[in-house]
């Protein structure tokens, strides 16, 4: 309609400046309205199920109950309680230890496999497919598989140990082994993803640069260290950020494999939160820990973006 009206006005050149500005304002208003209407279907659930819950969690961390019984405001009591709770500090330490081990292991292996797949492309498709398969399994199922592999009586690990003449190990009775199992399960699940991620990154390394280094006499490892790694650095940093954030939320495997045991030795932060909220009915403490998790993750995100930013600024300055 407006388009037609404008066309007529254009032909007859009758549009006064006031008419023109009024028409354009109408057009802009209509366009804005379209914009808000397009956003509405997303923003209703977004506000209701993401923004509001965040603030609700923060609010309830200053209350007792609130989940099944009405909330009672108690000020900082929950925060005092959890800050004095050694179980929480242990959970955070366990989570950090788990994350460092899992990320280190998965990155080293994935980088190695990606380099091999990048260099030896013949038939690499079949390997990529095979590595991808564990990614299709829910973490719960992966936990069950590992529960099975590490079983005391008939598990694959103990079978190998017996065949080697070493006595069986109860992997679930020892905190160090139990955490290692969770690390291995998550590494196993994530290896395919990170391999494909690094492979995609490696394919962005310009061939000419590597050729130039080759001509200059740089041997394999030096070429990798001096050419490939510096080019990959932003992608590596980004990967570290995502991996830290994801691994800080480890829960499913803990739930199925160890239930936080033995003696809380594999209790991670999310496991702690889940237990306080839904098992022990100490919801106030659960909410406080949940807000703490949110804080940690946001802090890590901000820190890494800041690091990424500094790096970029430095590079631009060079």
């Amino acid at each position: 309609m407006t388009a037609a009206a404008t066309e007529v006005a254009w032909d007859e050149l009758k549009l006064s400046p006031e008419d023109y500005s009024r028409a354009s304002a109408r057009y802009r208003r209509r366009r804005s309205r379209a914009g808000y209407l397009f956003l509405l279907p997303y923003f209703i659930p977004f506000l209701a199920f993401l923004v509001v819950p965040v603030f609700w969690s923060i609010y309830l961390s200053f209350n007792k109950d609130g989940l099944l019984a009405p909330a009672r405001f108690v000020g900082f009591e929950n925060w005092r309680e959890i800050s004095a709770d050694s179980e929480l500090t242990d959970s955070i330490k366990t989570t950090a230890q788990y994350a460092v081990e899992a990320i280190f292991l998965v990155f080293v292996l994935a980088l190695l496999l990606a380099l091999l797949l990048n260099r030896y492309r013949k038939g690499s498709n079949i390997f990529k497919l095979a590595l991808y398969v564990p990614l299709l399994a829910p973490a719960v199922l992966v936990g069950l598989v590992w529960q099975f592999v590490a079983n005391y009586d008939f598990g694959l690990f103990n079978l190998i140990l017996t065949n080697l003449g070493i006595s069986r190990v109860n992997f679930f009775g020892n905190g160090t082994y139990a955490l290692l199992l969770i690390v291995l399960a998550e590494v196993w699940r994530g290896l395919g993803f990170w391999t494909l991620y690094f492979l995609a990154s490696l394919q962005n390394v310009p061939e000419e640069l590597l050729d130039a280094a080759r001509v200059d006499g740089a041997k394999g490892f030096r070429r990798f260290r001096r050419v490939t790694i510096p080019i990959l650095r932003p992608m590596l940093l980004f990967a570290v950020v995502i991996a830290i954030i994801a691994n800080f939320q480890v829960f499913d495997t803990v739930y199925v494999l160890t239930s936080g045991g033995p003696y809380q030795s594999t209790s991670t932060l999310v496991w702690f939160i889940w237990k306080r909220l839904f098992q022990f009915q100490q919801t106030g403490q659960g909410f406080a820990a949940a807000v703490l998790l949110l804080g940690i993750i946001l802090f890590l995100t901000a820190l890494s973006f800041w690091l990424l930013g500094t790096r970029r600024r430095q590079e631009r300055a060079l």
Partner: protein
Amino acid sequence: MAAPDATIDIGSAAHADYARAARRNRFLGVTKGVSAYLVLTVFALIATVPFVYLLSPSLRHSYVLFTYPPQWIPENLYWGNFRTVLHETSYLRWGLNTLIFATSVTLITLVIDTLAGYAFARLRFPGRTVLFALVISTLMIPTAAVVAPLYIIVSHMPGWTHAGVNTYLGMILPMVCAPLGVFMMRQFMSSVPEALVEAARLDGASELQIFRKIVLPLMKPAIVVLGIFTFMMQWVNFLWPLVITTTDHMKTLTVGIASLQGQFVTDWGVISAAAVMTMGPVIIIFLIFQRWFVQASMAGALKQ
């Protein structure tokens, strides 16, 4: 590898040296290649063997598990474990629940995310940057930090107090607002030429018409990628279904399988049968649509 340099006379000592070096080089290359493929094969086996390993106990009586030396290939196939899964658990119902849950979340997500993505990429309105920044700032929010308030909201959804728990609607709706999809869609839609949209606008098309007739057809690959990604995220989703379902027949597969562990404590035959039934169809679907899966998971690099 390369032809001998023109300045080296064939038969000279230099040529013999060169030939020896080339042979050594070739030998090293072959050795490296063989070891590379060996490493790749080992890891490919590590990735896949546990699933094959599960097949064996699923086809045996559980007590056979404890024999030593282990009996890898069952002497006679025993289908009882699968029967137990089908008849003594709500396995089929869990599968149906998972399908309904993941499919609905995916479809709703696709609709609302493409709409929002288009608004952020191609429409001008006051507050656009601020709203987009708000969406982006929620990208990293962990589920564990919002799961309890979500439970409260769902269980008190207006009008049907406590009715939201154990319902499909209560399960589905809170999961449709993952900000990553909007971010992805905005990125993809920014690649639609502005001139194309502008031309349609001049021809008098409404924004909805532009969106449906011009933008969506161009977005088909992006929509498939986001669809697979969203479906996979919900297919493996555990924490939310665990919290929001309390009755057996509303559980999803992930929650149901986890609960088998308590129900059939040592009956590994049954548990592995359930695992085989779960992974079988998924692996087949994956093999058919593999190209899309890989793309989708790369798009998800931003999320965990």
